[in-house]
């Protein structure tokens, strides 16, 4: 994927996995297709009051392919339901100041979405509803609404896994599994 574009949804620091997908929905199994879709409809429904709904009532998907976040996005549980529900809701990328380790790894392993890191605080300069574009190869994020561009960090050591399409594809490519 060369570019990702669309409307952004902005969240602040320490968005934990209970906010991304509350525990009451962990009875849904991500590998069952209809439950995968259902998980998408609950994405981010645990955010505190004050945030606009991420998925509109009655809808199965969100209108936001890009999430802009502060520090420590995805902290808490190892539940893969978290990146899965975002992917199922139609999210293509999260651009966060930093990530919690397991969430980042689950994004890479599943290939559900790109976990881009900026190291800079974009959640204060983006507003939910802004339109943005990510040039994946050029590691550049542009806010089309404000006209400003920001560099994003390269994926580094996990890049080969992401490029291969997840841990299974990577292991097959490198001969670890058949």
């Amino acid at each position, binding site marked *: 994927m060369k570019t990702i574009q669309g409307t952004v949804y902005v969240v602040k620091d*320490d968005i934990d996995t209970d906010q991304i997908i509350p525990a*009451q929905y962990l009875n849904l*199994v991500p*590998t069952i297709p209809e439950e995968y879709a259902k998980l998408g409809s609950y994405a981010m429904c645990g955010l505190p009051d004050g945030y606009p709904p991420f998925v509109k009532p009655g809808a199965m998907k969100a209108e936001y392919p890009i999430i802009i976040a502060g520090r420590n996005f995805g*902290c808490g549980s*190892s539940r893969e339901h978290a990146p899965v529900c975002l992917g199922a809701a139609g999210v293509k990328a999260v651009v966060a100041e*930093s990530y919690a380790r397991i969430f980042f790894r689950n994004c890479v392993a599943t290939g559900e979405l790109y976990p881009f890191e900026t190291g800079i605080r974009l959640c204060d300069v983006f507003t939910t509803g802004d339109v943005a574009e990510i040039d994946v190869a050029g590691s550049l994020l542009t806010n089309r609404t404000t006209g400003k561009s920001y560099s994003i960090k390269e994926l580094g050591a996990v890049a080969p896994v992401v490029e291969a399409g997840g841990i299974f594809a990577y292991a097959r490519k490198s001969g*670890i*599994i058949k």
Partner: protein
Amino acid sequence: MAMTLTEKILARAAGKRVVGPGDNVWVEVDILLTHDVCGPGTIGVFQREFGKMAKVWDPSKVVIIPDHYIFTADEKAHRNVDTLRDFVKEQKLPYYYDPGTAQYKGVCHVALPQTGHVRPGEVIFGTDSHTCTHGALGAFATGIGNTDAGFIMGTGKLLIKVPKTMRFTVNGTVPPYLMGKDIILKIIGDIGFDGASYCAMEFTGEAIRQLSIEERMTICNMAIEAGGKNGIIEPDEKTFEYVKARTNKPFEAVYGDADAPVDSERTYDASTLEPCVAEPHVPSNFALARERNDVKLDRAYIGSCTGGKITDFLAAARILKGRKVSIPTFLVPATMEVAEDIIKSEIDGKSLVEIFAEAGCDDIAPPSCAACLGGPADTYGRTSGKEAVISTTNRNFPGRMGSKQSRIYLASPLTVAASAIRGRITDPREFM
């Protein structure tokens, strides 16, 4: 080259002489742990990638402990346990602890070591972030997602990055009013909610040595609450005694090199630390219990992998003996073994069951994760409104115990018990 405890375990598991922080290595897995919430998805990934007829790499290394949604009428929760049962049967897995039978255990992170599946020097992955608990016995243990777990199921291997080590040395004598929970909440408060991201948190020092295995588990359990990849404590005689009482399987303990470089070092004196709480809504929101007497509470909760062990109930009983709680107080033993120990244990000739009943606590609930993470609507102890809860659990995120409006204060079982008596946050020294 000198290596830390974590590096040495990973080097051995990777079949390498030396590894260093930042290296990406394939490690051989000793134990893969999963439960009812992530097991079905893990099995789904395993079958999708390796085929419907595929066999797990080593049945003796897969441990399945259902614990999250056990005592609920939720149909999908029951379907998920059935999925585990079918898989266990088909794969002939020897280590499955089925709800509703004599084999049922309860919360996986307390059951895993109790059942002898945690051994020093080994590499443990689990589909639950609190898998870091098992570092308390000198193992490398960390949480992973379903996809990585499905990969391990088929191969017995995983590609991981060797973490930097942050060392926390706790010296001095542990006073009777201080618990492992206070030590770890202090550390998380100091370094922050993401202060150990991607790092190994190694706990050492004479105060750590004084702690029981259960108390060490409380500390390692919450490494993830600072973003840590693993928490770890070097094994000692207490570790060996605990492990050998539970398994005959041989193991080879690993020790860090004294001269191994670490990424950072912090030193504490246990004798100067005080009972504390983590205020809503992050575990790093540290406050001293004695400075929060103004916080009025609606309920108290003692349970979970962090705070539902026998040592936790003994601590609470020391405070509650001969006193009455003034707010609803929920008691959820982590495992069947803990529940049995509560029945067997006494303080000054009085059983814990009697102490809790006379104090006016709610009846002791059957072991499971229960309200620690909210769960289905009929979960025992789940919040549903604006309750202020003081809890021995590990997370106080918005909505963590059910309702987004409820406020959770994390504390040691001593502090929870003292606070249950007053109905306000209370330093346990007031009752000691």
